[in-house]
C-alpha cells in the first residue's frame, strides 16, 4: 500500500451533527478508512459520573448512520473512538446497539463488528495501588489516594492505538471504541498498514478535530488525510474551506498546553520539527514529526466523583445601590442558610453564586469586576447529600436575597427581581477526582476486545 487515506467528518461525533454535504464529497474521494472520535473531557465530569451522554441518542445515531452506510458501501473500515462522550462501557454498548439497529434497518450484508471496553473497576485499581503502583497525578493533581478513589464513581482508561490495531488485525469492518486518545483512532489504521509511527500519530493529530484544521472557521465539516511513507497531506472537503499552512500549524495548538507535544499511551508525538508546505489551494503537506516511545507504558485515567444533588435558582438586580452592594446581599442569604444548616464545611453542603454582569464568566480572574453593568443576573446553586436538602439550601440562598437589608436602599419592598419564584432541579454535582496515569505491563490489559457478526446474512433475507 503506497498511501492510506482517511476521512474524518466530526471532531466530537454526536455533540453536533455532521455536515452532510462535505461528508458526501469526502466519501466520493473514496477513502480507505472513515473514522471519528466521539469523546471529550471538555463536557465536564457529570456524564462520566452519571453514566450518560451529553447529547440525544438521535444525534449520535445520525452521525453513525451516515458513517456506517458510507463504510459499508465503500467496503472500508469505520472506526469510532471514545463512544458517547465518555467511552464508558454503557456508551460502547449503546453504540454497538445503534450499529446493529442500523444494520437491520438498512438490511446491510454481514460485516464484522469489533468493540473494546475502557472502564477500569475501582477495586481493580485499588488492588494495583495496594500492590505498590503509583497512580501519578497530572496537571497539578496529587498522586491518587484510596480516599479519593473511594470518592470516585466511575473510571475510564484512555486507550492508545493497541486495541484498535488488534481489532483491525482480526478483520473488524466496524470498530466501536471505549475511551481513547483522539489521535489514536486515526493513527491505528495507518500503523496497521505499515506506515511509520512518526507520521501515523501526526495524521491522527491533524485529523482528530475534523475541519478545525481548516479555514475559514466552520465545524463539523469533513477533512481528508493521506499518509505515505514520507509525508501527511491534509485536504478540506468543503468547497469553501482550505487547509493552509497557517490553519494546520495553528491546529497543533488547539486544546493543548504546549503546541509541540502530544502525549498518548506509549509515547509522545513531537511536532517541533514539523515542516508545513501548501501543495494546492485546499491542501497542506506535513513532514518531520517524530514519535518517541515512552520508556514506561503509562495509561491516562479519568474518573468522576459525586458531590451531591443540586438545585439552581436565579435572580435579577436593577437598583444601582443594590448592585454596588451585591456582596452584602449574597452574604445575607448565605447567613440565612448558615443559620439553618450550619457552616458549609461542617454542614456538608455547598452554596455557589455566579454574578453575571459583574464577574459571572471569569470569577476572580475578571479584571473589570469593579465596573458592574446596570443590571445583574445571579445564578445560585445549592449542592447537598440529598435532593430535599439541596432544594432547601438553594431556596433559602435564592429567596433570602429578596429580604437582604441594605442600610440606605430606597426600595424597601424587595432587593431582587424573580423571573421564576422557584428553584429548579439540575443534574447532580460531580468533580474530576481522577486525572492520573497508571503503569501497565501490557498495552492491552485494560482494554478487552470483542469481535461479533452484524448485518443480515443471506438466509435471513
Amino acid at each position: 500500500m503506497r498511501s492510506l487515506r482517511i476521512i474524518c467528518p466530526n471532531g466530537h461525533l454526536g455533540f453536533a451533527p455532521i455536515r452532510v454535504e462535505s461528508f458526501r464529497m469526502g466519501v466520493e474521494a473514496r477513502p480507505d478508512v472513515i473514522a471519528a472520535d466521539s469523546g471529550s473531557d471538555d463536557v465536564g465530569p457529570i456524564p462520566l459520573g452519571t453514566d450518560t451522554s451529553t447529547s440525544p441518542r438521535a444525534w449520535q445515531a445520525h452521525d453513525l448512520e451516515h458513517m456506517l452506510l458510507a463504510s459499508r458501501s465503500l467496503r472500508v473500515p469505520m472506526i469510532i473512538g471514545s463512544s458517547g462522550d465518555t467511552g464508558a462501557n454503557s456508551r460502547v454498548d449503546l453504540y454497538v446497539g445503534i450499529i446493529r439497529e442500523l444494520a437491520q434497518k438498512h438490511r446491510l450484508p454481514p460485516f464484522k463488528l469489533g468493540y473494546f471496553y475502557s472502564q477500569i473497576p475501582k477495586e481493580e485499581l485499588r488492588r494495583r495501588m495496594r500492590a505498590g503502583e503509583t497512580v501519578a497525578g497530572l496537571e497539578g493533581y496529587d498522586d491518587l489516594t484510596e480516599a479519593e478513589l473511594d470518592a470516585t464513581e466511575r473510571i475510564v482508561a484512555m486507550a492508545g492505538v493497541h486495541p484498535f490495531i488488534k481489532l483491525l488485525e482480526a478483520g473488524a469492518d466496524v470498530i466501536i471504541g471505549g475511551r481513547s486518545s483522539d489521535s489514536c483512532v486515526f493513527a491505528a489504521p495507518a500503523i496497521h498498514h505499515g506506515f511509520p509511527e512518526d507520521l501515523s500519530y501526526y495524521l491522527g493529530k491533524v485529523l482528530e478535530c475534523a475541519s478545525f484544521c481548516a479555514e475559514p472557521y466552520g465545524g463539523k465539516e469533513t477533512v481528508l488525510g493521506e499518509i505515505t511513507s514520507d509525508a501527511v497531506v491534509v485536504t478540506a472537503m468543503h468547497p469553501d474551506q482550505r487547509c493552509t499552512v497557517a490553519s494546520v500549524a495553528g491546529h497543533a495548538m488547539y486544546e493543548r498546553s504546549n503546541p509541540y507535544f502530544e502525549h498518548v499511551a506509549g509515547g509522545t508525538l513531537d511536532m517541533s520539527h514539523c515542516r508545513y508546505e501548501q501543495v494546492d489551494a485546499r491542501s497542506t503537506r506535513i513532514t518531520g514529526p517524530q514519535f518517541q516511545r515512552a520508556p514506561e507504558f503509562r495509561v491516562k485515567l479519568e474518573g468522576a466523583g459525586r458531590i451531591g444533588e443540586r438545585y439552581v435558582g436565579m435572580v435579577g438586580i436593577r437598583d444601582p445601590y443594590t448592585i454596588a452592594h451585591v456582596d452584602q446581599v449574597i452574604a445575607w442569604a448565605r447567613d440565612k442558610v448558615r443559620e439553618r444548616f450550619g457552616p458549609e464545611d461542617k454542614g456538608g453542603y455547598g452554596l455557589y453564586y455566579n454574578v453575571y454582569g459583574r464577574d459571572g464568566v471569569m470569577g476572580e480572574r475578571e479584571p473589570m469586576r469593579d465596573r458592574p453593568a446596570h443590571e445583574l443576573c445571579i445564578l445560585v446553586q445549592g449542592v447537598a447529600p440529598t435532593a430535599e436538602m439541596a432544594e432547601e439550601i438553594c431556596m433559602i440562598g435564592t429567596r433570602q436575597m429578596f429580604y437582604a437589608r441594605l442600610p440606605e436602599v430606597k426600595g424597601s419592598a424587595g432587593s431582587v427581581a424573580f423571573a421564576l419564584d422557584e428553584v429548579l432541579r439540575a443534574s447532580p454535582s460531580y468533580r474530576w477526582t481522577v486525572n492520573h496515569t497508571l503503569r501497565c505491563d501490557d498495552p492491552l490489559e485494560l482494554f478487552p476486545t470483542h469481535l461479533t457478526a452484524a448485518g443480515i446474512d443471506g438466509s435471513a433475507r
Partner: protein
Amino acid sequence: MKTRKLSELAKTIRSKNAGVNLITFDIIFAERSTYEQVKRSRVLTRETVSELYRVAPDRIADFVEFDPANAIKFTIYRSRPSGSPGDPDIFGAQQYAPLLDIEVPVE
C-alpha cells in the same frame, strides 16, 4: 507612542480547556510581521498575563511563542477543575476577553 488594540492586530484570540485543570489561550496573527511586532512589544509575556489574569506566575503552566503558526500561546491552571460546582465556564471558552483590549505599541 501610537498603540493599537490586540483585537485589531490578531486574526484569532481564543481560550479553551487543555485537559480538566488547564485553560489554554491562543493569539494567532495572519501576518508574520504583525506577530513579530507583538512579540517585540513584550505586551504578552508570562509576567503581563499573570497580572492581567490575576494568577500567580507559578500558575502559568506554559508560555510559548509558536513561530510555525505566528502565534503566542499560554496556559494557566484553573482555580478548580472544569465542571466543579460553581465553575462558570466548563469548556474554558470565554476566558480570552481581557486580551482583546491590550494596547500594543506600534511604530
